[in-house]
């Protein structure tokens, strides 16, 4: 299990064999995962898979029936929640309260003094260019505006672990981008981020590792790059100058599938193929190199979308197995 990485990296969070049952419904069944410090960790899964229950357990809101959660090496306690910032998927604010008062209220709940909270908040409000909202009532804000305030409240106390559940929903692309940069900045400053979303493009872009939960089981865990390689099915694309037909005829015996692509404006032809084994690659490239002038070579990696769908569908059709890798 992630041996190479774990040897020199500490885990901020370890979830060990956690199970949780509600009446007639098993929300989590023997789920384990390890979140390395200073990384962005994707927590993925279809609706109702048990992600929110897991996040609530990590936040010490509910307790697991069995298993344990280690935070920074020790058993998670209520005192640790000041080191966690959580932005829930379903979120709201007190409508009648002024934005500034409300932000100070939440910051104080996280352990900041009133003066510290006010000072830090003023900075953040300036940074996100929302200083003029301080004395407005929340009911006067739009949804996106309120989300910005909630984001600030989540990160204000500089927590070691940040948990964002669908942070970009309700944001326009410009503000979503602002937020994304703020999240990455926080990571660069040393925070660990757990990121739960259905937007797989942002997973590819942001996450270092992921865990995929389906039907209360952890069905896939690993670093994003490694997973994409593993799911690539030995698919590659080459670009070359020369006769495509002859090349295809020559390499046909070595491949599992082969598919010619369009020739681009520079006169470079492309061919996509998949191999039965990675070991055939060297042989194939040798054959191709002798036949045509090779220009490009790319392994074709599946999108996280594909991996998500394939893994979830597989696990729905078979009995759940413990995660590999």
């Amino acid at each position: 299990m992630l041996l190479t990485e774990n040897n020199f990296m500490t885990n901020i969070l370890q979830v060990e064999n956690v199970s949780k049952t509600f009446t007639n419904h098993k929300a989590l069944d023997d789920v384990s995962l390890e979140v390395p410090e200073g990384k962005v960790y994707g927590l993925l899964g279809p609706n109702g898979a048990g992600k929110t229950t897991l996040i609530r357990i990590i936040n010490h809101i509910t307790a697991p029936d069995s298993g344990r959660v280690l935070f920074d090496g020790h058993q998670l306690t209520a005192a640790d929640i000041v080191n966690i910032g959580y932005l829930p998927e379903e979120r709201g604010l007190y409508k009648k309260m002024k934005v500034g008062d409300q932000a100070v209220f939440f910051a104080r709940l996280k352990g900041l003094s009133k003066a510290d909270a006010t000072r830090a908040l003023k900075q953040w409000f300036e940074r996100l260019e929302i200083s003029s909202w301080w004395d407005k009532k929340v009911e006067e804000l739009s949804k996106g505006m309120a989300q910005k305030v909630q984001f600030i409240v989540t990160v204000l106390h500089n927590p070691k672990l940040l948990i964002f559940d669908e942070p970009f929903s309700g944001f326009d692309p410009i503000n979503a981008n602002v937020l994304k940069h703020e999240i990455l900045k926080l990571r660069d400053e040393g925070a660990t981020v757990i990121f739960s979303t259905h937007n797989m493009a942002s997973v590819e872009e942001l996450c270092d590792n992921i865990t995929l939960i389906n039907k209360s089981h952890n069905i896939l865990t690993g670093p994003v790059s490694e997973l994409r390689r593993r799911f690539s099915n030995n698919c590659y694309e080459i670009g070359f100058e020369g006769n495509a037909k002859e090349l295809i005829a020559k390499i046909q015996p070595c491949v599992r599938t082969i598919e010619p692509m369009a020739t681009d404006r520079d006169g470079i032809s492309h061919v996509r193929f998949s191999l039965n084994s990675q070991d055939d690659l060297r042989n194939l490239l040798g054959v191709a190199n002798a036949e045509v002038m090779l220009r490009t070579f790319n392994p074709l990696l599946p999108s996280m979308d594909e991996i998500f769908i394939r893994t979830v569908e597989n696990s729905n059709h078979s009995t759940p197995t413990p995660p590999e890798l």
Partner: protein
Amino acid sequence: MSRALSIIIAREYLERVKRKSFIITTILMPIIMLAIMVAPAVIAMMSTPEEQVIAVIDDSGVVAGRLHDSDEITFKRVADNIDVVKKEEAYGAILVIGSNVVTDPDDNVTLYTHGSPSLTTERFVKDQIEDAVESRRIELYEIDNLRQIMEDVQVDMKMKTYRLDQDEENETSSLLSYLLGTFMMLILYFFIMLYGQMVMTSIIEEKNNRVLELVVSSVNPNDLMMGKILGIGAVAVTQILIWAILIVAGSLCLMPFMTTAAATADDPTLVAAISQLGDPAFMAKLVVFMVLFLIGGYLFYSSIYAAIGSAVDNIQDASQLQTVAIVPIILALIISMSVVQDPNSGLALWTSMIPFTSPMVMMARMPFGIPVWQSLLSVVLLYVSFFGMIWLSAKIYRVGIFMYGKKPTFMELMRWVRYK
């Protein structure tokens, strides 16, 4: 008290007390109450009653002479036929008395009016005729001084009551106890209902606009629930204190009038009532217990309301579960109504010990004077039950706040208690 709890309490308290609606109701309420009490008297004083003349056609010849005019009503005997009198505009009403009125009053008296007569007019006329017939009947016995004899036989006694269980034998007034008991019981009813439901609606609101998810990621749900109950409770205490100050200030202004009224009053009930009201020991004991029961009752019921609020998404869904809280409160109200009539009955004793009914029933009994052990036991039971109830509610709350969609039944709430 944990830091988070005090921050929650402060928010709940300040957000409410700073609201305009709180300031307005707190100041306006006593004014409205005073207006309701004073208004009828003022209206009665201001409005001069309508004077009217009633024409009397007396076939018996014995009644008309015995009718006495009042300030508003003048009887005028007429000899004309009824049809003639009906055409006259001057008469407000026509009273027709048959010839056999003395032997058979039921079938011999008729009152014709323009429009429906007022209740007081009708009663006045009826009383006058009854008196007239009565005195005529007495005359018919032809016994000398019969009227005098009958008046001598009449008894009108005023009894003095003293309490034996008090150090000083104070004169007590059951009238005052009745009024005080009813008053305090209603105050308790009002506050428990109003502020208990406020706890519930406020939790539903938090759940509904999903701010709750954000708050519970920072504080323990128990702290959040407790903070809400205590914060809103503090608002209730603030309101009561303001009203108490207004009432004390008001009565200090009125006291000189009341003492002169007591000095000049020849009614011993009134004298006793006023002297008891002025007894500091009696009043202090009442106020202390009232505060204890008010706070205890509020805490007990608001924990029930908190559990209900946590379990539903909107106020409509709450109505069914609310019966769990409302039925005992209404029951307590009804029992208290009978308790002020009979403060030492078995029902009164038992219901003033059961925490669901004890705050109100005890408040209704308290002014009548009850053994100290009873009041203390009741207080202890109430506060102990509160701790039991808050424990139960916290368990429901913890689960309920994350339950959306389905409206839970009472049995499901009980099942949540067992969740880890």
